[in-house]
């Protein structure tokens, strides 16, 4: 029965979106990393499920990559970075939780309004999928905007990329090379971020990016 197949795919997508909101809601660094790991795990499940219903074995590789890299390796690495740098475990947000959540819901609405006219001739389900993926991307951006802490911003970036993968697995016939490239680019970005963390830390004794603004004399 194809109905329940697509329903499950949607539920997985929706859980990814929900975890994006969880990411926005968290205040502690470890909680943020946990939410991100959970999101990646659900994403891996979604990729495997899509591989099953689309009969596309290469999606299993995507699932495996998402699981091993984003759900296990990167969170562990981030934990170690936090331990090594010995930074404060709570995050200052530049916006309160309430306004952030309202902005998040507005972004979801925006992405739906954006996807609706573009995909007028496809089924409601594909439309919903694309809307979900776009919302996850926008929420990742919002996470990056509202965190002052560099690690929070990196996690926002990674969850943005989760949204891209969600869009890629939802569309039939996406070649594996695209997903591999995206995953690889994120790996490289993560390494660069890691180097940046240590440099910022060495220079300013903090990972709060407002220190950079002070340094450049942009802040009154």
């Amino acid at each position: 029965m194809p109905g329940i197949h697509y329903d499950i795919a949607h539920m997985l997508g929706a859980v990814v979106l929900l975890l994006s909101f969880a990411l926005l809601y968290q205040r502690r660094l470890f909680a943020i990393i946990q939410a991100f790991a959970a999101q990646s795990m659900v994403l891996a499940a979604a990729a495997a499920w899509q591989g099953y219903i689309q009969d596309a074995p290469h999606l299993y590789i995507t699932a495996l990559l998402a699981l091993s890299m984003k759900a296990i390796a990167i969170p562990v690495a981030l934990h170690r970075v936090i331990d090594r740098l010995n930074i404060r475990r709570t995050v200052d947000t530049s916006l309160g939780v309430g306004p952030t959540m309202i902005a998040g819901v507005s972004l979801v609405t925006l992405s739906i309004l954006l996807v609706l006219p573009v995909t007028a001739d496809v089924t409601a389900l594909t439309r919903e999928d694309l809307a979900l993926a776009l919302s996850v991307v926008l929420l990742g951006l919002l996470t990056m905007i509202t965190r002052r802490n560099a690690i929070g911003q990196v996690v926002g970036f990674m969850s943005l990329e989760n949204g891209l993968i969600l869009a890629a697995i939802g569309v039939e016939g996406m070649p594996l090379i695209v997903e591999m490239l995206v995953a690889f680019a994120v790996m490289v970005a993560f390494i660069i971020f890691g180097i940046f963390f240590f440099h910022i830390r060495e220079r300013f004794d903090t990972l709060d990016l407002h220190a950079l603004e002070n340094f450049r004399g942009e802040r009154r």
Partner: protein
Amino acid sequence: MIFVQALLAGVFQVVQMLLVLALAPGLTGLVRVVKARLLGRRGPPLVQPYRDLFRLLRKDVVLADNASWLFRVTPYLVFTAIWLAAALVPTFTTALALTATADLIALVALLASARFFLALAGMDVGTSFGGLGSSREMMIAALAEPAMLMVIFSIAILVRTTSLSLIVDFMLAGGVGLRISLGLALISLLMVAIAENARIPVDNPATHLELTMVHEAMVLEYSGRHLALIEAASMLKLVLYMALIACIFLPWGISEPGEGPLAILIGLVTFVLKLASGAVLLALFETSVAKMRVFRYGEFLGGALLLSLLGAIFLYVSTGL
């Protein structure tokens, strides 16, 4: 035949009202027992809430000198409103006499009027605790009610009715499938239920600490049979919310009009099982989270509101209105 059905519906309605009344303290007791076990204590026996209620009913009422008629009338009003609301929710069968009036919006209105009188009574005697509890309760209500209404609207978009028995019929027919919006609505409704029933992340009914109490502060001045009625009402409310969640999201087992006694028996058994598993899950949840600060209620319930709003938005997309 129609006459027989109407008669049966009346009988079922009475059975349902007595059933929820009889099960309510047991449910609260079960939550307490499971919680105590999880915390490594033995805990009170399952029948303790029944004993407490009977003991309170036997005791005299102590009234403050300046208590007005409102203070004395409120327990009866609150109990009646919540009992009536609980009678509206289909528990084991949808063939109830009140089916025609079993509307979700009526349910919210009944609960809201009960809360209104309770908050007024909390302020009536003029103690500082009462006012504090009332103001907190109204703050929670102002956030929880829109969330609950939003959930109801999402369901109404999907099923095109707010009548509970029709919703049960629709869900039992299985035409819905797994919907994103329903998942969001379920989470939102769970959050509202936790807030409304004064459970742990929002309120802790087991303490009398001025920093945390909401509901307890409001009813601090009550004693004797008045207190028994208010306690029974809050126990009924827990059953009501569990039954509501069960009948909207897990309606399996509820018998439909015109089905035989076996279906009704299955309905009864599954209802009790649903309540029991709900109690265990609630106890698990309560022992695994910490009490929230009062200032974070807004974020918690705002989250519920946003989730239900998201659900409605997604429904709007998929049904293509």
